[in-house]
């Protein structure tokens, strides 16, 4: 469904952030994008959703294909219309708007009013707390409720591909569990394809089908989520507990995964 092929992204005409990133997201799947701070995960999502331009970024090389069509450089409103919705990092709700108005904004590009009404009910069923606070100003919601609202707004867009940037950011562990179960449900019940960026590798790998590990602006490793999850080294590597140098450690780990899972792991940089 979505295929990024060797893309490079530059901010402000000078800072090269993505350096030949290639990832693929098959229809109907949950794909996790993992990596340390500054690896370029959010930038990757922004280059897919077209939000890069408003931050002075640009895709300077490679291709981004959605349903086989090139979308690099498309305006965000067009991409939303085509079915890509980006739930940005840091639960950015419209603070001065009510909860329900925020949700209505999520459906801004839709034209099927009856579908929107049904989806509003569905969002409220997913998040009963939002229903209770529907008339309340969104700025006064708790952090967790704001995250629910941000995801609910994404649901209101009824996208085919949802880009989720760190839905667990600043949220209590119990609620994180709840939110991830919901993401899984959204994928299963609505068939929404999901590209998920997450710091919490463990929980992300718990719901993802496939995962990519990013480092320095490219994917250095990818494989089925289970195989990455069952490898302690992945988590060690990812969380940076190891005292080896990054590259060496990652090569060791790849070898380790190959040994245990037999060649399922692809190398992004070959």
């Amino acid at each position, binding site marked *: 469904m979505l295929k990024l092929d060797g893309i490079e992204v530059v901010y402000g005409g000078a800072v090269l952030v993505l350096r030949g990133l290639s990832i693929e997201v098959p229809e109907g799947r949950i794909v996790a994008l993992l990596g340390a701070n500054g690896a370029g995960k959010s930038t990757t999502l922004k280059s897919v959703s077209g939000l890069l331009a*408003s931050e002075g970024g640009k895709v300077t090389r490679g291709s981004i294909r959605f349903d086989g069509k090139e979308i690099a450089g498309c305006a965000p409103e067009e991409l939303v219309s085509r079915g890509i919705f980006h739930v940005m990092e840091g639960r*950015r709700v*419209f603070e001065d708007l009510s909860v329900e108005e925020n949700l209505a*904004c999520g459906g*801004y590009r839709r034209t099927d009013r009856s579908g929107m009404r049904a989806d509003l009910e569905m969002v409220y069923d997913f998040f009963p707390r939002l229903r209770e606070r529907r008339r309340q100003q969104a700025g006064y919601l708790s952090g967790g409720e704001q995250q629910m609202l941000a995801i609910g707004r994404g649901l209101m867009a009824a996208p085919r591909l949802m880009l989720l940037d760190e839905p667990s950011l600043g949220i209590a562990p119990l609620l994180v569990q709840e939110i991830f179960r919901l993401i899984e449900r959204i994928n299963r019940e609505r068939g929404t394809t999901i590209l998920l960026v997450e710091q919490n590798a463990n929980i992300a790998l718990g719901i993802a089908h496939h995962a990519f590990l990013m480092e320095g602006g490219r994917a250095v490793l990818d494989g089925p989520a289970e195989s990455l999850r069952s490898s302690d080294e992945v988590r060690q590597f990812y969380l940076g507990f190891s005292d080896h140098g990054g590259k060496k450690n990652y090569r060791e780990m790849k070898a380790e995964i190959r040994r245990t899972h037999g060649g399922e792991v692809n190398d992004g940089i070959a």
Partner: protein
Amino acid sequence: MDFTFLLQLLINGLVVGSIYALVATGFVIIHKSTGALNLAQGEFLMVGAYVCLYAMTTFRLPFAAAFPLTLAFTALLGVLIERVVLRPLLGSPVISVIMVTLGLAGLLRSGLQFFFGTDTRAFPELFPSAPVMLGVVPVSQGYIWSVAGVTVLLTALGLFFRYSRAGLALRATASNQQTALSMGISVKRMFALSWCIAAVVSAIGGVLLGAIRGGIDMSLGHMGLKVLPVVILGGLDSVPGAIVGGLFIGVVENLTGGYLDPLLGGGVKEVVPYIVLVLILMVRPSGLFGRKKVDRV
């Protein structure tokens, strides 16, 4: 003290104030959604008055045709100005945007002067001249129509912002541009729309002012100067603030003009709004209705 005189001053104040409120509302809409401070807001008012006058006198159109034409013209002008003048400045410092709107004000004003000259031009009579009695006070029908017009317009604007899809998108853009973009809202279009609304609203103020004054000249632009005290008083990004501020300044101005000017000599009327402004800002630095920013982490 003559009670009728007081009432007369109050009514005059409310009428002029309601037009201040319109112009200030335009200013606030632009500032809220685009962050720009538009110092050419008063010139939009002049353009409205002159275009309507021109359509009625030179083209001999009836008001019912001239008015929509004026609206269409100013709507287009607003969009054009956003597109050609403001859009290239996206991301520039606020001060450069202010300077540019100041230049724009000068440009519009000299354009009007060039086309229409500096003489006072009679505005066709839109309302019957016989006053009606409001209790003991005779009030000209133009005043009543004007206040009714402003009320209807502001109510319509309020409903538009609250319930329409475009109104929601405008408020979302005002709240957070990047997030609005991520919803698929075209922020550029919203900017154009705010300039369009601001221009049209002020132009309507200009037409009303022309009609109640009976004549227009370059001094109409003075209305624009009042916009600053009004919006600073009301809070830069509050539409209710702009309305209350407009009415308030209108009334204060007329009361001081009626009672103090004869005692202290002319000119007090011009100064008092600023004195009131300073006093209020000392108590409420962000204006009467200044945005209570949601503060949480």
